[in-house]
């Protein structure tokens, strides 16, 4: 089923692209401990992407493996939500995005453990242990930044105002999601919204960050229509495989 493949690509690409963005912090974080933390989280996400893209390749059944899917597709073939491809911005923006995304992944993995696709259920069971740590880490930081100094609060609020509109993409219903859910393969993202809000809103309140109004804006990365930042990200991520096809080390 084409939708099944699409769905797995979406969650695989989410992990891959967010992992790529977080890894850009390696060597640049505000403190050594945070450098280690962001790099470790990036590694977890890259590991999840490997499992998911390998599985997607099997579902597609055209002989593409994790490397071909990760490194040899063109921009329009990536199915990640736009949020994860946006530039890191400052530390507050990175942490806020990690928080919004980890809370989403956390709900997704919990629901996906009941998937009829045994591989997806197993990946979800494993990844959930990791997303809990990511969520806890980003939650601690977000409260500290939001309810911190005037400067950190202003930056956290600016990050929330900038990124909040992109979270609507997670939950708007679409045919791929519905087909996968109707076939009983796994859960549609749209049903996760109340659970995600229940996880996210209390933390934002604790961080003293007012939540922006929902607007009509809808990003569309999961349909392959990306922001202008995606091409630059791919140019860097794919450079090695494009320059030296099949390179190994």
């Amino acid at each position: 089923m084409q939708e099944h493949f699409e769905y797995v690509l979406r969650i695989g690409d989410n992990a891959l692209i967010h992992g790529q963005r977080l890894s850009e912090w390696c060597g640049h974080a505000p403190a050594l401990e945070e450098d280690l933390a962001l790099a470790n989280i990036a590694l977890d996400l890259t590991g999840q992407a490997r499992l998911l893209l390998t599985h997607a390749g099997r579902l597609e059944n055209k002989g593409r493996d994790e490397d071909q899917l990760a490194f040899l597709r063109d921009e329009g073939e990536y199915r990640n939500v736009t949020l994860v491809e946006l530039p890191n911005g400052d530390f507050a923006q990175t942490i806020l995005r990690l928080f919004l995304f980890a809370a989403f992944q956390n709900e997704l993995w919990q629901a996906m453990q009941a998937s009829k696709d045994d591989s997806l259920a197993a990946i979800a069971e494993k990844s959930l242990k990791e997303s809990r740590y990511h969520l806890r880490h980003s939650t601690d930081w977000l409260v500290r930044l939001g309810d911190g100094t005037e400067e950190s609060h202003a930056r956290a609020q600016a990050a929330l105002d900038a990124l909040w509109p992109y979270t609507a993409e997670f939950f708007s219903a679409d045919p791929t999601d519905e087909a996968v859910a109707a076939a009983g393969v796994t859960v549609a993202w749209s049903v996760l919204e109340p659970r995600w809000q229940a996880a996210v809103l209390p933390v934002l309140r604790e961080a003293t960050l007012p939540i922006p109004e929902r607007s009509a804006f809808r990003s569309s990365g999961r349909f392959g229509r990306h922001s202008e930042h995606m091409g630059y990200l791919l140019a860097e991520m794919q450079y090695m495989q494009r320059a030296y096809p099949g390179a190994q080390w």
Partner: protein
Amino acid sequence: MVSMLTEAKAWEVLAQVPDPEIPVISVTELGIVREVRVSNDAITVILTPTYSGCPATEVIEHSIRTALAEAGAQSVRLETRLSPAWTTDWIQPEGAEKLRRYGIVPPAPTGDMHVLRFQPPAPACPRCGEKHTERLSEFGSTACKALYRCPACREPFEYFKPI
């Protein structure tokens, strides 16, 4: 030629294969070897990886192949089993003791980890036993460890995170 290794012997060999990141404990003490099957033509080792992104995974697979081949295995097959997911509860008691002697506090039992803001009680310092230690970072030199500091002996130490 048929494989000369018995299942029991294969486990003994695996018990000598160190974890590349924490070489004081073996892959069996770490609890990632879930099953060993011996058939006429091959030894199959079933592994459950620790963290999805653990960079040691490939090294571990390579070490296992090499060790079993050196012990006389003709053909080694490695399979990955994701479910049930690896948990630090699978670390063998001897492994936990070796971690402690190495200066890494072994993980507490996982129990209920579902609470968002759950802060595990700080582990006691592995050097001086001081109970009131402070966490520097939930992520240490590897994905599986957190970084702590002991205010009594002023030494930093690592804690194997329960997952």
